[in-house]
């Protein structure tokens, strides 16, 4: 499988995503410079975490105007798989490829720590290697991770199974006490209606080796690879 990772100026998790896809999963990976106008020959596109354009103005607000974003949109329209992680999620929301917005954490502080997320829908391109309701141990690392969407959008997301992950406790219990950033309904990750574009605030690439504390993040990438190979 061939992954393309988009490199915006200020991105910083692109090398981590590349490392995991290459070294842990032995898949092919290329870096795509943000000034590229076209994407071809890729099976999935990753928008990595970081601080594209320094998060100046608003997270993702400038990156969405990078030339490559038009190509990403076309890629998504044609059914290609797109993963937005952290800043990537923020960019996808700004670009209108995913509904809702990410606001500052309720604490007004940046937060970097391990948390748990519960898998809300395991029948998707991004979660099919997870078991129903499984709690994944993965880190978050953001200043603007408080997911917000209006009531109508939330209803749609819930009814159509587009909510992929909610912040939870070690046993999968979803409650306000386990909400690290004030996200509406503890939402940590969603997908679009067509089921081929996803965004999540936690960093699955940081949890792919036991040496670093957890392997739970592997399940996200495994899911994508399984879907592509037609095995799920």
């Amino acid at each position, binding site marked *: 499988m061939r992954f393309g990772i988009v490199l915006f100026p200020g991105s910083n998790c692109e090398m981590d995503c590349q*490392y995991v896809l290459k070294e842990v999963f032995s898949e092919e990976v290329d870096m795509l410079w943000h000034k590229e106008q076209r994407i071809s020959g890729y099976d999935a596109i990753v928008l990595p975490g970081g601080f594209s354009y320094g998060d100046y103005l608003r997270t993702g607000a400038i990156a969405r105007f990078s030339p490559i974003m038009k190509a990403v949109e076309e890629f998504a329209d044609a059914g290609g798989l797109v993963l937005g992680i952290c800043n990537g999620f923020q960019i996808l929301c700004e670009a209108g490829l995913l509904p809702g917005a990410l606001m500052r954490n309720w604490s007004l*502080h940046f937060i970097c720590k391990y948390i748990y997320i519960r898998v809300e829908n395991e029948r998707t391109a991004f979660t099919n290697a997870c078991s129903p309701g499984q709690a994944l141990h993965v880190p978050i690392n953001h200043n603007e991770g408080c997911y917000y969407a209006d009531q109508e959008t939330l209803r749609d997301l819930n009814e159509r199974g587009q909510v992929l992950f909610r912040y939870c406790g070690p046993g999968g219990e979803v409650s306000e006490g386990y909400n690290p950033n004030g996200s509406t309904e503890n939402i940590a990750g969603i997908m679009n209606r067509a089921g081929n574009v996803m965004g999540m605030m936690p960093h699955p690439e940081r949890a792919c080796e036991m040496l670093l504390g957890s392997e739970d993040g592997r399940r996200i990438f495994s899911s994508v690879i399984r879907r592509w190979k037609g095995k799920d």
Partner: protein
Amino acid sequence: MPREPEVTVALAQEHGLTEEEFERIKAILGRSPNFTELGIFAVMWSEHCSYKSSKVHLKRLPTKGKAILQGPGENAGVVDVGDGLAVVFKIESHNHPSYIEPYQGAATGVGGIIRDIFTMGARPIASLNSLRFGPLKEPKNRYLLSGVVSGISGYGNAVGVPTVGGEVFFSETYRGNPLVNVFSLGIAPRDKIFLGRAAGLNNPVIYVGSKTGRDGIHGVTMASEEFGSGGEERRPTVQVGDPFTEKVLIEACLELMATDYLVGIQDMGGAGLTCSSCEMASRGGVGIEIDLAKIPRREEGMIPYELMLSESQERMLLVARAGTEGKVLEIFKKWDLDAAIVGKVTEDGFLRVKEGRRVVAKIPAKSLAEEAPVYDRPMKEPAYVRELQEMDLETLPIPFDMEEIVLCLLRSPNIARKSMVWEQYDHMLFLNTVVLPGSDAAVLRLKGTNRGIALSLDGNGRYCYLDPRMGGMIAVAEAARNVVCSGGRPLAITNCLNFGNPEHPDIMWQFAEVVEGMAEACRLFEVPVTGGNVSFYNETSGRAIFPTPCIGMVGLLEDISHHRVQWFQQEGDLIFLLGESQEELGGSEFLKVAHALEGGRPPQLDLCREKAVQNACLDAIRKGILKSAHDCSDGGLAVALAEACMTHPERNWGIEVELKDDMRTDALLFGESQSRIVVSLPEARIEHLMEIACQFGVKATLLGRVKGDRFRIKGWSFSLDMDPKKMRQAYEQAIPSYFR
């Protein structure tokens, strides 16, 4: 164009130069300097840039060793870590700016130290910081802590270098003068190190990065003076950081360094264009000519003086091979960076600054960079030292409720959990952080190898105040011990020395003593010093801070699987103490918390015994005998045991421990005797541990067992029986409670 002021002795003195120094400048030039030249001399001969008061003492630090590829004198030290890799690291202070404007002061401190690393050709992969503030109960100190931490977080996270560890300490002494010491480390192929030196007649000198403005003019002169009460007026001398530009600058420079276009490169930090140009020329034994008309600017009407002294951030100066300049500029264009050819390398050894055709400054580069005045300032042991050392601690009443003391110590911000700080830092980027913050040292793996490195920052200002030489030795020993407890072999150190006004003989004495203590310890541990930073004039309204060295220790793990954490691992494991407890209460956190005293002699360190304990511990870790290891430091044995029970990320452990030593209970539980490590191991390995202890001549005492769900310590005349959950609550809530 505004008229430049006339250069007089009085003006030189306003610039922080003495009358003798002014005479010396005239002798070097053979004439009186003009205004621009005066400004250039003033910044280069400032304490901050020239180390004029510290140089004679720093010479005593050992700087050579097998693994050292680059010692002091470059932008950062370089150490061989095997498998063709080198680590590049340095520490620097940003104390003065952080007091004036905590967010930007700390942020630009991070930006500056990171530039020192990538200018050597290394990708920065980790930062640490050592922070000191006045007591948290005062709102001003909470404001400073919040601002500094936000600044480090805001800049460090966005620039994409994880902050993997550090330390925070509170004491009245830092009330008017907080310390912000930032450490950064990068990694590079050992044969691809770049140096800050110019070479090659007519090679182009290229400027890249942010445009130059009026910010930060006289930053280094400010760092070379004491504060009066109105530090806020100095705010315009603090620079404003732009982490995005720096991130792009890192990527662009590393891309350039992968080519063969580059001859030398240096960042523009303190003293900006002046420092980078004359240091590069001086190191290369050549001259540099710069045309100020070509410098990218963001403000109009800047005069040569301002352009040369500006400390605008995120700028680099480099020398490329003639003929490659087009390709160099192309790389910067790809990253949308401002870059311009601003000058050339000459052979006459002069820093020649022009504006168009007019020469506005012409100074021998060496006279600025290497021939600054050096002072062997008078020293005198201050009277307080003996007085405090002789404080009678033996007659202090022994507290009745030891359980309450344990809780008080766990609540003391100096011991309490600092997660409120480190959770604001991205500490996982690059997928290297094997031991996260919250243990004795940070451990990173080195990708593509089986190796790892352990990093620790340490320095106890209180010990140094009471006995500077002993304090300097302990700072090095403790940093090494932290690295050893994490499974690393100490390799080398960088250091940041924070002191008061060196023109006062008692401060100079403290400085010389601390350096001597450090030098002794470094020699015995065979850990050379690869460079560092001296920050003098840490005084406000005549009150100096505690002499505070901060040691940044880098250790090597030949096998990353040897990494260890401070917390216990398994029910039933045995708990041993390596080393011996003495009846020592002097300088302890216990004295401060329970008796509001900062006095006595600090714990006495026997370097040979320390080394034996460390060697035994490391050997036992490498042989797979130990499951955890934790250094005994602030709060003594009781706090070390408590931390081993309640800092596991997911659970608490209970213990049953019996202490058989015959001494004051408070000294036994809370004394801070050096050279002690609390370790845990499976019962089956007990003989192996005893063999190793015997081989290294180290006392290993069985303390008890990881068992049950109570924290139980028994002695001849006391018994503690506490709930680890409650202890954890005290430990974790202490610092956040000040911010509610």
